[in-house]
């Protein structure tokens, strides 16, 4: 990805990405520390556990905003195609893993891994798309 960019939509997205990433790390560290030291229970525990997830949701929203703000329709098209391929690949993995869990007792998949998995697979798809449309 071009990190030097004069595309305002992309720049705004990178800003939002950085902020939500920082929030995520902060919330995760906070949650882990408090859980290890104070072992909270009840609604407080749930709230702390959900905070990092909320940061991820903000990150997803930031990407959604980028998609709607991107003026270059061809680039947006490429991005959307990559996202769709990412959906296919990610859900294939999770569905297969889920069945293996049930039938042959494969180790549980940690659900919060779905998002990074999706990002990686979509990124791969985007790379392939960019190679097809130099």
């Amino acid at each position, binding site marked *: 990805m071009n990190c030097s960019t004069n595309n305002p939509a992309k720049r705004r997205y990178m800003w939002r990405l950085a902020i939500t990433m920082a929030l995520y790390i902060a919330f995760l560290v906070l949650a882990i520390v408090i859980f290890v030291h104070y072992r909270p229970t009840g609604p407080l525990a749930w709230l702390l556990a959900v905070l990092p997830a909320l940061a991820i949701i903000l990150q997803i929203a930031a990407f959604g905003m980028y998609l709607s703000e991107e003026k270059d*329709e*061809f*680039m947006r098209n490429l991005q959307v195609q990559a996202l769709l391929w990412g959906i296919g690949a990610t859900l294939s993995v999770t569905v297969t893993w889920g069945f293996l869990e049930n039938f042959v007792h494969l180790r549980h998949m940690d659900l919060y891994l779905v998002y990074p998995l999706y990002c990686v697979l979509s990124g791969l798809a985007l790379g392939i798309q960019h190679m097809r*449309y*130099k």
Partner: protein
Amino acid sequence: MKNRLRVLRAERDWSQADLAQRLEVSRQSVNAIETGKFDPSLPLAFKLARLFETTIEAIFSDEN
């Protein structure tokens, strides 16, 4: 969709990057439109027509 973008560009001695800058899109977009791999939306087609001081039909030909 078939188009005369390459010819029109050559007449003004513009590279794909030049045209992309004037349209405020990426060079890959211009290449994709030129090679017929991607059809521009109406607003972008109008932008192109205005830029080359002609009509959309004069640039793009829709062969059924």
